[in-house]
C-alpha cells in the first residue's frame, strides 16, 4: 500500500527529455534530461552563458526548444498543437527585470491574468452548455466513423515512427563519431558535424511529431453540463481583487494597490511580480535570477519572500548566483555548463564534495 502511494507521488511534475536548443550554430542546450518532482526546490547555478537561463525559459517555452520534450503535468509543452497558454497558467515565472506591466496599477497587474482566465472559463462553460445537445446527437450518429478514422491515423503514425527509427540509428552513430572538442573563448566546447546534427534533429523531430500525433488522437467524448465557478464577470473581478489584496497584505504592500509600478522600489517590484505569479495558483514557480537586478539592500526582502513560499511546499526552480541562498533553500542543486547538466546533488554534497572539475573551479571562484 505504502509503496503504491510512493509510486504515485513520485511521478515527476516536469519531465525534461533530451532538451536541445540551438541559436544559429551555437548549441546552448545539449540534450538535457532531468525530472522535477512535486515539492522539489531545484536551484540551478553555473557560469553565465552556460545555458541555465535558456533552460529555465525553455521550460515554459518562452524559448522554443530546437528538439526534445518537456512534459509538464501530462502535457507535452513542445507540441505546437497544445494550448500553451493553459499550461503556462500553471507555471509562475519571475524575471530578473521584474517586468511588471507599466501601464497597469499594482492591483491590475495582479488581477489581469486571473480575470482573463475566469472570463474565458465562463465563456467556454456557456458555449459548452449551449452546443451540448447538438454535439452529442452528432456524436451518436457519426461516432463510429470518427473512431475508425482516428485508428487509421494512429496506425499511420506508428509506421512513421518505425521507419524513422530505422533511419536514425546509423545517423546517430555517425553523428557521435564526428564529435570534436575545440577551444572557444577559453572554454572547451564539444562540437559536432553541422550537417549531421541537422540531419539527426530532423529525424528526431519527425519521430516526436508522430508520437505527439498519437498522444493527441483521442476518441471524442460526449459533452456534459459544466457549472461555471462564477456566474458573471463582476463576480470574477471581485474574487480576483479580493485574492490580490490578500496576497498584497501578505507582503505588506496593500497600500500600494492603486499606484503604478514606476513609483516602486526594485525590491517592491520584484515582490509584487512574485505575488502576481502566485495569484494564478501555479503548480510550479520559475525564478530567473530574481535578485540580480536589485540593489544589495533589497536582495534580502525578496529572498525572504521566496523562502516563505518555499516553506508552503511549492515546487520551485530557481536560477541564481546567490550561493548562500542556494544552500539554504535548495533540495537539489544543478550545475549547468556548456549546455549540459554537469552535476546535480543535494546542497550539502554539491557544495561540500563537488566532483566535476568545472564545478570545483566554479565554486572556488564564487565562494
Amino acid at each position, binding site marked *: 500500500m505504502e509503496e503504491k502511494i510512493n509510486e504515485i507521488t513520485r511521478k515527476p511534475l516536469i519531465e525534461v527529455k533530451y532538451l536541445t536548443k540551438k541559436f544559429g550554430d551555437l548549441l546552448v542546450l545539449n540534450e538535457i534530461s532531468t525530472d522535477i518532482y512535486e515539492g522539489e526546490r531545484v536551484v540551478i547555478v553555473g557560469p553565465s552563458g552556460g545555458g541555465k537561463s535558456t533552460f529555465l525559459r525553455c521550460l515554459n517555452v518562452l524559448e522554443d526548444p530546437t528538439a526534445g520534450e518537456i512534459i509538464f503535468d501530462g502535457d507535452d509543452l513542445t507540441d505546437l498543437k497544445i494550448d500553451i497558454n493553459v499550461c*503556462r497558467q500553471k507555471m509562475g515565472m519571475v524575471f530578473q527585470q521584474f517586468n511588471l506591466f*507599466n501601464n497597469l496599477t499594482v492591483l491590475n497587474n495582479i488581477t489581469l491574468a486571473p480575470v*482573463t482566465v475566469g472570463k474565458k472559463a465562463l465563456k467556454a462553460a456557456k458555449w459548452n452548455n449551449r452546443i451540448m445537445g447538438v454535439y452529442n446527437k452528432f456524436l451518436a450518429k457519426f461516432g463510429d466513423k470518427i473512431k475508425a478514422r482516428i485508428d487509421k491515423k494512429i496506425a499511420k503514425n506508428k509506421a512513421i515512427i518505425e521507419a524513422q527509427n530505422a533511419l536514425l540509428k546509423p545517423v546517430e552513430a555517425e553523428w557521435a563519431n564526428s564529435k570534436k572538442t575545440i577551444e572557444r573563448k577559453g572554454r572547451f566546447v564539444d562540437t559536432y558535424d553541422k550537417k549531421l546534427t541537422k540531419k539527426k534533429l530532423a529525424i528526431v523531430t519527425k519521430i516526436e511529431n508522430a508520437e505527439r500525433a498519437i498522444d493527441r488522437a483521442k476518441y471524442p467524448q460526449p459533452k456534459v453540463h459544466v457549472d461555471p465557478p462564477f456566474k458573471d464577470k463582476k463576480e470574477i473581478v471581485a474574487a480576483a481583487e479580493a485574492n490580490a489584496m490578500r496576497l498584497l497584505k501578505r507582503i505588506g504592500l496593500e497600500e500600494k494597490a492603486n499606484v503604478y509600478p514606476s513609483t516602486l522600489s526594485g525590491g517592491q517590484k520584484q515582490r509584487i511580480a512574485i505575488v502576481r505569479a502566485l495569484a494564478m495558483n501555479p503548480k510550479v514557480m520559475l525564478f530567473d535570477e530574481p535578485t540580480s537586478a536589485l540593489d544589495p539592500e533589497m536582495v534580502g526582502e525578496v529572498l525572504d519572500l521566496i523562502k516563505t513560499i518555499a516553506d508552503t511546499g511549492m515546487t520551485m526552480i530557481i536560477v541564481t548566483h546567490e550561493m548562500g541562498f542556494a544552500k539554504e533553500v535548495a533540495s537539489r542543486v544543478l550545475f549547468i555548463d556548456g549546455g549540459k547538466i554537469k552535476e546535480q546533488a543535494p546542497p550539502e554534497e554539491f557544495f561540500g564534495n563537488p566532483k566535476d572539475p568545472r564545478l570545483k573551479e566554479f565554486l572556488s571562484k564564487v565562494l
Partner: protein
Amino acid sequence: MSIWQIFVRQFVTLEGYKLVLEGLLNTLIIAVFGLILGFLLGSLVAVIKTIPSNKKVVVGFFQRIADFYIAIFRGTPMVVQLLIIHFVLFPVLNINFKNIVVGNFVIQGVVIEAIIAFALNSGAYISEIMRGGINSVDKGQLEAGRALGLSYPKTMIRIVIPQAFKNVLPTLGNEFIALIKETSVASFIAVTDLTKAFQNMANSTYEFIIPYVVLALFYLVLVLIITLLVKVMEKKMKKGQ
C-alpha cells in the same frame, strides 16, 4: 468697400457661413474618422508586422500583404489614391455610397469615400509609427504576459499597444496634423471641404484676399487645438503611469 464690409458681405449677406460650416464639418469628419480608422488599421498592420515569424506560413503571408499595402500607400501621392479610389476602384467594384442622414446633418457618399481613402493612407503611415512604438516597448512586457498564460493578441492589446501608444503619441499628433491639412485635396472628388468652401466663396465674388486668409486662419486654429489636445493627453498619460 472696406475689408470689414467685404467680410460681412461674403460671410453673412451671401450666406457664406453656411458653406463654411458644411466645409468645416466635412473636413473634421474626414480627418477624425480617417485618423480613427487609420489608427485601428495601422495598429493591426503593425502587430502583424511585429509577430516573430516562427516559420509560420500564414503569418508570413499576411506580413507580405502588409509590406505591399505600406509600399503602395506610401509610394503614391494622396491625390492619386483619392482619384483612383473614387473614379476607378469603387466604380469597378460597383459600390455606391448613399448619403447618410444624421439628424439635421447629411453626410455625403463622397465624404465616406474620402474617409476610406484617408484611412487607408494614414493607416500605412500609422502602421510604421506604431511598429516603432511596439518595438520601443520592453520585450519583457510581452514575455511577462505570455508567461502568465495570456494569449499573444490579449497581451498585445492590454499591455504592449497601450504602452506603445503612449510612446508614439507626439508622433501620432503630428500625423493627425498632417492628415487634417491633407484633407484639403478632398475637393478633387467633389467633397465640399473647408478649402472647397472658401474657394467657392472667393470664385463667386472675385474677392480673394479675405476668404483665403480666413481659410489659412481656420487651418491654423484647428492645428493649434490639436496640438493642445495632444499635450493634454500626454500629460494625462504621464500621470497615469
